[in-house]
């Protein structure tokens, strides 16, 4: 009798699991629709996701993925509100969002280092952060990854950032440095230096990663999704990881695939776009795709506390998990 009752209970649980709403579809045969939020627009830098889609990794894992482009702050809020299952955001966004009560968790590291730096003309005489004192430094704005990267460099070098003449110039760093309007500009290391080089301006770059290890871009999910649909996350992380590995193994194939996802890429300056991809690859190389280094989270929190973006320290171990990545 007891065995019959247990069997009935198990059958009821299976039925219940099949009826569970939300993102869970671990027991279904059909592909699960998944909306993935990422950056402002399609770009060669998102190529691992295009490759995972094109080579059928998402399909094999049971996902029907739609890419959606939006600012990462909006993406994080939508994930926290349960409107989207996943988004690609930078590490600092997780700590900032969690402080405001947005229950998101970083479930997979993609960029192994923080891809921000400070670029300056090689002939400018600038060599170290101390050389920036009294200089004009252009930055997209006093917020976001660029500002955090700038402050991280200055903080790590022990330089008071107030001694630097920061100017908010929007995303016009290439033009501003090329025209000599700024002595240096805060940039994404895989992007603007390549474009400046193409314009014939030889630049050097101080990279955040040369000074401090911070969390870069990665995949986030909500606490609710982690609790209710862990297999969904595990499957997505695995497919995404396969996409990263495929790009690292064959960048030429990846570039070809990206052309059907990034409008205008086929007509763009191929040398520049390939250089952006090659530079990005250096940030994706790792022996353990997806793994989050706890120290990088502590470092990130220290930077955010120092610049007043966080009002108080939080338990950073709650902001990320390595549960879904292979050891």
């Amino acid at each position, binding site marked *: 009798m007891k065995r019959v009752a247990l069997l009935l209970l198990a059958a009821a649980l299976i039925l219940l699991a099949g009826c569970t709403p939300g993102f869970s579809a671990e027991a279904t045969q059909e592909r699960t629709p998944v909306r993935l939020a990422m950056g402002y627009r399609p770009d060669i830098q998102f190529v691992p996701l295009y490759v995972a889609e094109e080579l059928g990794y998402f399909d094999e894992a049971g996902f029907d993925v739609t890419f959606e482009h939006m600012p990462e702050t909006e993406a994080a809020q939508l994930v926290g509100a349960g409107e989207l299952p996943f988004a690609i955001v930078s590490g600092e966004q997780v700590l900032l969002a969690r402080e405001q009560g947005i229950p998101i968790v970083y479930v997979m590291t993609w960029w192994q280092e923080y891809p921000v730096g400070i670029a300056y003309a090689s002939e400018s005489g600038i060599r170290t952060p101390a050389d920036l004192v009294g200089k004009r430094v252009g930055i997209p704005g006093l917020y976001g990854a660029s500002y955090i990267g700038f402050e991280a460099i200055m903080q790590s070098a022990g330089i008071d950032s107030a001694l630097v003449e920061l100017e908010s*110039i929007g995303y016009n760093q290439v033009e501003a440095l090329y025209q000599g309007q700024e002595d240096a500009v805060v940039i994404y290391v895989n992007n603007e230096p390549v474009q400046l080089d193409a314009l014939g301006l030889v630049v050097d770059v101080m990279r955040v990663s040369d000074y401090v290890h911070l969390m870069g871009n990665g995949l986030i999910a909500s606490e609710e999704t982690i609790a209710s649909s862990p297999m969904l996350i595990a499957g997505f992380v695995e497919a995404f990881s396969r996409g990263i590995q495929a790009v690292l193994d064959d960048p030429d194939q990846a570039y070809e695939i990206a052309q059907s996802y990034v409008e205008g890429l086929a007509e763009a300056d191929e040398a520049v776009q390939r250089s952006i991809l090659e530079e990005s690859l250096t940030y994706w190389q790792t022996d353990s795709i997806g793994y989050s280094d706890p120290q990088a989270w502590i470092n990130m929190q220290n930077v955010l506390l120092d610049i007043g973006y966080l009002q108080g320290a939080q338990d950073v171990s709650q902001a990320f998990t390595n549960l879904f990545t292979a050891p």
Partner: protein
Amino acid sequence: MAAEYPSTRARNGVSVLLRVLRIPLSLLLFLLMWGAISRWSDLPPFMLPSPAAVGARFMRTWRDGSLLYHMGVTLSEVLSGLFVGMAVATVMGYILAKSPLLEQILSPYIIASQAIPTVAIAPLLIIWFGPGRISKVLISALIVFFPILINTILGIRSVSEDLYDLMISLRANPSQILAKLELPAALPVVLGGLKIGATLSVIGAVVGEFIGSDEGLGFLINIGRGLYDTPLVFVAVFALIVMALGLYGAVIVIERSVLRWRTG
């Protein structure tokens, strides 16, 4: 008749009371609806904060002076942009009103310029004129230019030919015709354009601040978004609304003052 008097008086009293209270009442209704939606909808507080949370954030920014500072920055850009845009638009509008040939030549370019989204040219202006306040003033001036220009042309052209004939018969010179006839006659329409321009100028300055700035209400909104501080975004947006309403009200006051002669 004597029996009707108190009820008429009572009706008038209610009417006056309603007139006085309609804005506070509509504001209260708005706050109640907002509070109800934030409380009973599925939207979490980080997407739709309650009026109380926004009020508390307002008090913080008010007390530390940051709201006043950023409002001051935006207001100075808005007023400068409005002044520059209005000056250029009225002068150019007068010239075009007087010269149909010039209007035919320039109109396609002026209309085409309106088809360009401000957000598309704002980054270029910041590159050309630097990240300081000048670029924001120019963006604001550009956005107010068109409505004031069009209304100036309409206003000048609305002056009756008979009045021109009268002025000429009185041997008025061109500057007297401008000062005594054209400006007073065109003023109501020009001020109509200024009302539109006053509210648009706020948008212009904030677009510039969005693209690249470290001060102003647009910057405050960017900071709020970047830090997931949605109440701060609401505070800055409401400050912009207050600013736009204030400017609109100021134009109405000016209008009533300078056009008093029309109503005697």
